[in-house]
């Protein structure tokens, strides 16, 4: 695999982790992040979400929620999701704090807001390396089913990008063919490290 990939959503739980998990299985060099201030998981009601700091191990959240209401969190898919996540990596990571993780070639976001935050963050960094990074937004609804679909689409796109020698030369073609194939709107931007 030529490129380093990052999957980014807001809480680094559902969409980015679904994609991370899938790409990892396919042998991609992939990381995942969230851009939110905290990791928020659904609680018994909208007003009472479960809020964790980035860096809190998925295992910890899993145990916490299983203790709180195993029935609820199993039914709404949170426990299975956390279980999947803890098999992928230790804890959710925040995009804005990932400078030490090195440069990525391709960054996938799954929500326009996140896309903008990633771009803004990249623009605010010192762009001294002049190493280009492709940031792609694939709009994916934040639920389990859509995340699974989104991850497969992301994988498909990654495979197409992997297949070309340099995405800088062919990204427009890749995007056009992708949009024709999947009938999904993509947004992309190019930034630099």
């Amino acid at each position, binding site marked *: 695999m030529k490129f380093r990939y990052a999957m980014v959503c807001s809480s680094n739980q559902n969409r980015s982790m679904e994609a991370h998990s899938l790409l990892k299985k396919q042998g991609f060099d992939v990381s995942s992040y969230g851009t939110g201030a905290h990791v928020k998981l659904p609680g018994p009601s909208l007003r009472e979400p479960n809020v964790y700091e980035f860096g809190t191990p998925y295992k910890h959240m899993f145990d916490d929620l299983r203790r709180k209401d195993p029935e609820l969190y199993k039914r709404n898919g949170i426990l299975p999701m956390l279980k999947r996540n803890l098999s992928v990596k230790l804890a959710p990571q925040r995009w804005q704090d990932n400078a030490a993780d090195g440069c990525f070639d391709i960054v996938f976001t799954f929500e326009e807001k996140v896309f903008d935050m990633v771009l803004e963050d990249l623009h605010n960094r010192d762009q001294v390396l002049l190493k280009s990074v492709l940031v792609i937004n694939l709009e994916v609804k934040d*639920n389990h089913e859509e995340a699974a679909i989104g991850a497969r689409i992301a994988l498909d796109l990654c495979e197409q990008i992997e297949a070309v020698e340099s995405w800088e030369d062919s990204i427009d073609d890749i995007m056009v063919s992708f949009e024709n194939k999947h009938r999904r709107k993509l947004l992309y931007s190019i930034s630099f490290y």
Partner: protein
Amino acid sequence: MVGIMNPVSREKLASLSSSVKFAIDLGSKLELCRQLKHDLLEEDAADLSEFLPRIFDLYSDPSGPVRKFATEIIGEIGVKHLEFVPEIAPFLITVLEDATPAVARQSIACSIDLFRHTLEKTAIRGLYSSELDSDLESSWSWMLKLKEKIYSIAFQPGSGGIRLVALKFVEAVILLYTPNPNGSPEPPPNEGTSIEFNITWLRGGHPLLNVGDLSIEASQRLVLLLDQLRFPAVKSLTTSVIVVIINSLSAIAKKRPAYYGRILPVLLSLDPPSFVIKGVHVYGAHHALKNALLSCLKCTHPSAAPWRERILGALKEMKAGGLADLALNQVHKINGSVEEEKDDSLLIKEEKPLTKAYDAAGSNVGRKRSGTEDSSDLAEKDEVSGKRVKATPSVSEESTKELNRNITVSQGDISSTQSSTRKVDVDTGPVQQLVGMFGALVAQGEKAVGSLGILISNISADLLAEVVMANMCNLPPTHPHADTDDELLEDMCIVGSDTQAKYPPSFLADVISLSSTFPPIASMLNSQQSVPCKIVIQKTEGKEEVDVVADPNSALAYAGTTHEDENALLATDLPVSSNIVLPGMKIDLPTPSDIHDTGNLESGIPGLDSSFHNDGLSDTQAASSLVSTDIEDASQEQATSFGGKSPLHVLPSISLDRSEELSPKAAVTDSSSLVSSTVTSVVSSCPFVLPKMSAPVVNLSEDQKDDVQKLAFVRIVEAYKQIAVAGGSQVRSSLLAYLGVELPSELELQKVLREHILSDYINHEGHELTLRVLYRLFGKAEDESDFLSCTTAASAYETFLLAVAETLRDSFPPSDKSLSKLLGEAPRLPKSVLNLLGCLCSPGISEKAEESQSGDRVTQGLSTVWSLILLRPPIRDVCLKFALQSAVHHLEEVRMKAIRLVANKLYPLQSIAQQIEEFAREMLLSVVNVDATERTSAEGLISESHKQGRGEDSDLEKSSNEHQSMSSISKDISADVRQSETSHSGSSPSVPEAQRCMSLYFALCTKAIHRHIPILVRTMGLSSDLLEIISDPPSGSENLLMQVLQTLTEGTVPSAELIFTIKKLFDSKLKDVEILVPVLPFLPGHEHFTQDDIYEKVAGIICLEKQILVDALLGFMLGTLFPITFCLVLLLFPHLVNLPLDKLQAALTRLLQGSAHSGPVLTPAEVLIAIHGIDPERDGIPLKKVTDACNACFEQRHIFTQQIWKYPKLWVGFLKCALLTKPQSFSVLLQLPPPQLENALNRTAALKAPLVAHASQQNIRNSLPRSVLAVLGLAPDTQSSSQAQTSQAHTGDTSNSEKDAAVTEKSKESSSAG
């Protein structure tokens, strides 16, 4: 500096570099490179100079990644040891041409680093010494060459991906060449210190670099960049290049505001729709532009200011207005207040959408900001933007007072959003417009009642519900009393119809008396709450204008003045704050003066009453908001008198209505500045003049809101009886569904609603309400992009549906269709609900299911499954699995039910027949062979997963999540079934076990054979083999034989061979007359059968089962040339009559109309005679059936009524029938022409009296023609006798007219005789 390279190290490096060269695979090469790089960077310059050529040599490697790595190493060496630049720069220039883009890009990436360092070093060296060493000069000149080379790539069209980095390089150089306003203006005191380089340092002069020249160059390059984006150059760019240029330009504009004015016009003139690259992709560039503009908007530099309006306009066009507001908001939070003041003027137009956000934030900025809202009028007049800057301070000061009202009015809506975790719509869309419309209409008073009614009736229930919701934010906490609900409702109506133009004192009295009527209300109130209730008295305003412009500080004096002027009441809206003092509540009513002080203290701006008011409102302490500071000294006594004398217990429902009406109304009056001038009698009762006040909106604490919301909800729930009477249950349902979903889930409103629904599912419109709630929740789960909301909504959806489904299952009889209907119409069926259905179909599959479940429940489950299979294709597979699972159930009862469903209903569906067959076969094989089972099930799984895979692929685009989740379930189930299968068949299968697994298969076989035999036989035709089989059929194959025979004789004349064979079979082996039926029409009677034979055989047929009889009859009626039809039909007729009415009708039609082959089998008369021949007692046919048959005949009027009387023989039969079937036959008799009628009556005297009686009924009599009445003797008619004669003659004469008919008749007779 100079040292001798450590021999070991040298050796190591040498070996490393050579191993890189000779390493075979790429991975190890790169690993070696990494090591080499690490080691090299440790070395000092002298050693490196020796080693550098070897590294250059690495670049000759054929593999791109190695060349890239080599370039990177060389670049880093260069940065670290700038003295190598003269060697490295030419190298990098060469690399720019590399065939591998990634390597060429690496060259540029190295170049910028090298360029920056060289520039810095050159610059700083020059600052501290007047002369530069030649090495450095040479390095610099090489860097300039390198730079030019990269420039050429950047601006050369079609240079591909490398251009992106080259453009970024241009940006970097522009930034390096231009002064950074935020950077350090002075160079570091000594050379060693590292601070970010700023070209400004060179202002003082530099031996080599000239700031001016550099700046000019930067400017030129910028122009080149900008030109790229101008039309038509932009057309030839790829999206990625456009994106990079836009990003670069916005970065330059942000970092070098001096260029703002040059960059912005180009960005703004960029036309997003023109970004069509190959007709498809515009989003990237469009989005980049949007982000660029947004980031430019955030620029706080003065040179950015003049552009803001245009940027905002452009962003709004790009539908990013909201984001723009946010961006501005951020800017203002960051900015100091001084600057903000200046900026305000420029933002005046754009402020409006911001007001809410600011208010919600409750920040100081917000309060000031809202102050400028109305000043836009002033600003608009002022065309020159430069002037606005100056005008602002005074404008905002003056207008603040005037704006107080607006602020507080909007506060009502906003207050609900103040707790940001709560999600309440604050949209300004159609709902708010409607609220405004309602407000405007209400403000018009009673004359608008009609218009209001029309408006309400034209709004859909859902929208109306949203309007009510939107307005509910203004509700004060109310506590309805359960016992008084009905009365309250009435009161509400009264209040509602009473438009609030004015409330005479009597109204106040009413309110007070009402409150005393319901003392329990006060005690019901939560003791922690103080409940502000407002009665607003519409007052007049005479000197409103004065008030508006008056110096706020003079408010007190002003109030005093007006106090003297008793006639002039100056307040527009006069809220009187009243207070319910609750038992145990310790907060005393704060004296207004206190509040006034607090107000001034808090706002800090004298005269800015509104500021305090804002604070008061946003404050969660209800007490402090009870009395507004706007009530100044003059109102003090008023307030105290209300609050002090008798705490006013206002009926909650009334105050609720009040505020609903008020806030929009207030908004309207404010915006239009309408001044009403009615002086009401209230004046006398209120001797004190109250100064103008803002709308009575009270902010509630979270708990209070919760209580209000829950109470309101419960009240709507409970009001079903009243609403059922009064109408509007649609609105109620919409409201309940909306509220149940939108209000915070902690209130457990859905539970309340569910309990209400389930307490009486049918009468409480359970189905309707449930579906509404489900659709709301489903919509929320689908629409929300936010994980929290959509997961929560999905979870709530499942809970709701499951609870209702379980209750329907448990509390309704199995025959009830509610559950099936619910599952058929619910937007989505989650796994748990499907499991419930599965358990219903297959009792005992889960421990939870009751073992003692009755068979009816299974039927219920299976019929639900059947309807779901038809109605919901996406979950067809799962439902099919349920049915199949039941079809191999261990209980025979369950199994048989399921098999009937599968074989009779599901198997005929082509789309699933294959799956059913596969399953049945698998089950069969599982009995035959355990190994086979395992193999096939493994195969099955594979093929299934295949199918699933394909299904998922094709579904990708459709994103049918229902299917997604379902397919996994179906797999589960089939796996379950198979598992239980394997475990069972592991031991040698018992007979019942074998039966369990095989019965489905055989049921299908039967179906399949019956389905395929006709095709087979038709294809084969009558071969000698087939004839042989027919002549000697295996025992037990009678049904099959019948089917074969029917197929062979269908629509064609059977061959003599076949007839002979059948006859032989009948005579020899099969004494069953049934097999003769298909060939009966073709039996050559004279040769093989005597008439008696046939009668005998037909008599046999009649004894057959009804189904066969019908088949036989239909065979005759299909128009086969059967010589004995008539006799046969006569014999059969009693049985025909005994058929269900619809079949009889069909049979009659066939008999009477015949077919293309034959013409009519029977004439109408014959039919009637046949009916007449039926003896109810002998034939065992109920009289009712005979009557029905007659009626059926009479319904074929066009045939019967016209022809019957033309045939004398039939006429008799007809009349007998008419007598037999009276009174049903009366209507037919009365339709006869008068002569025939008279004849009939004469012949059958017994008919006359009842018929006359029948016709005498007024309604019938009126419908009869005069001539008929005359015949009946009901109307005097002189001509009746002569007519009767004529008719008699006519009826008697058959041969005169209608010769054809007579011929037919004769032929019939002859045929019947033959």
